[in-house]
């Protein structure tokens, strides 16, 4: 195919196509951003909790039991440090539920010992649990795995759903382009037929449709990306205000932002391929 004057400019897809693609790209990018952010949150969480255990002593336990528990923990191979959490810190942990009026200070709260392992190890946790059970059965060892495991399952399902939303949005975008291409083919029927009769190959006829779809869908997906970026900035701002330890820090890395931009490019690429497939499929009815 030679220069741009080879084939006539098409009547065009009109304004509706970029608009529809923008909406779908927006939905896909929000879903993708959600999935990526969940990934980061999960990694943050895991980094926070992996290799840490908590020993819980009942509030009524005598003070020397704390020292015994600390000594037992520190004597366990694989334990790096063991330190009692100050009461103020325990109270702070409970603030979201009990409020800031000092109620936590008046309640018989358990004593918590934060245990850090040299490396995350189920074996060390098991040894420590066995030793605690033998020496002080009233102590409870929490290795966080049970509740963390539930969260991991939930987050993985949310990521799976987000990936499904992305795929559905891309598929819907391709469908919209295919329908619009059919309409454009009908409008350009005479031109297409004369090109065919003059000896144009199918790919030569498909090319202006592809170019038009790429431009229009590219415009739409960029608009979707811009809207999604604004929405994500807003969510980031709200999360920062929430001051949550779990959702602290940047939830989207530059690489994640690259994925979002790649999704916008993918929308344009899929639109181009959808237009091409539609035109080639339609041309097959011609001899």
């Amino acid at each position, binding site marked *: 195919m030679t220069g741009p004057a080879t*084939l006539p400019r098409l009547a065009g897809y009109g304004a509706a196509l970029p608009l529809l693609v923008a909406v779908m790209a927006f939905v896909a990018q929000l879903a993708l951003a959600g999935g990526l952010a969940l990934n980061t949150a999960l990694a943050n969480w895991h980094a926070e909790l992996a290799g840490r255990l908590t020993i819980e002593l009942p509030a009524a336990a005598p003070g020397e039991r704390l020292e015994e528990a600390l000594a037992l923990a520190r004597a366990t191979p694989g334990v790096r440090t063991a330190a009692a959490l100050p009461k103020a810190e325990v109270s702070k942990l409970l603030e979201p539920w009990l409020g800031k009026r000092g109620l936590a200070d008046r309640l018989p709260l358990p004593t918590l010992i934060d245990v850090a392992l040299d490396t995350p190890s189920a074996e060390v946790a098991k040894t420590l649990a066995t030793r605690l059970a033998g020496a002080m059965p009233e102590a409870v060892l929490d290795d966080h795995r049970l509740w963390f495991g539930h969260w991991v399952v939930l987050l993985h399902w949310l990521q799976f759903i987000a990936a499904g939303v992305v795929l559905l949005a891309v598929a819907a975008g391709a469908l919209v382009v295919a329908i619009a291409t059919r309409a454009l083919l009908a409008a350009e029927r005479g031109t297409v037929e004369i090109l065919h009769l003059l000896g144009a190959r199918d790919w030569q006829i498909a090319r202006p449709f592809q170019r038009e779809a790429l431009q229009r869908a590219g415009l739409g997906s960029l608009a979707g990306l811009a809207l999604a970026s604004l929405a994500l900035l807003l969510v980031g701002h709200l999360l920062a205000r929430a001051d949550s330890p779990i959702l602290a820090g940047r939830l989207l890395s530059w690489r994640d932002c690259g994925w979002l931009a790649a999704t916008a490019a993918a929308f344009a690429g899929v639109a181009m391929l959808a237009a091409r497939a539609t035109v080639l499929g339609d041309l097959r009815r011609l001899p």
Partner: protein
Amino acid sequence: MIRFHNVGLRYGQGPEVLRDITFTLEPGSFQFLTGPSGAGKTSLLRLLYLAQRPTRGSIVMFGTELNKAPRRAMPDIRRRIGVVFQDFRLIEQLSVLDNVALPLRLAGQREERTTRDVTELLRWVGLGDKLQARPSILSGGEQQRCAIARAVVTNPALLLADEPTGNLDDAAAVRLLRLFEELHKGGAAVLIASHNTGLMQRFPHRRLQLSDNALVAAPALAA
């Protein structure tokens, strides 16, 4: 060069619009395709410019048996055929120059040579001052010359014209036929569908006569 053998054509489930068509077009021949309206002239032309596949029989064009040829082989065959459609079928979004250049560009000819060849051809058919004009502002005769230029720009081996003199007065029709004869001198086989018997008398070339959707012996033309 082109051989039809027992070719039949029907559209969908309808009756046959062409029956048992057998003929040969030799390279460099000049023939009229004639017959009353509805006899099947346009359908036969559609088979010749590959807008239609026959429902039966065999067609061999330029050594390729169309029934056995894959669809992807058709563009190369079409590029050896020039067609002047009855309604010209010029593309309105393109200038006269770009309309005529289209077959060359589709064939991948270099742009500088294309522009030079097309400009020269358009001057030859009297459209040298209309290179950038859109087809809609041309007169009927100019549109026809543009369509002829597009049909011959690739030096086709076969030139087909569907009722090219239909809307012309006698003088213009004669001029047009002389133009086709000039093009024929370049070596192309020419087949012109027409029912203008007066013109055929003035240009006594061989005739393919269609009647009731079949080829019949061409009757003698009245003196």
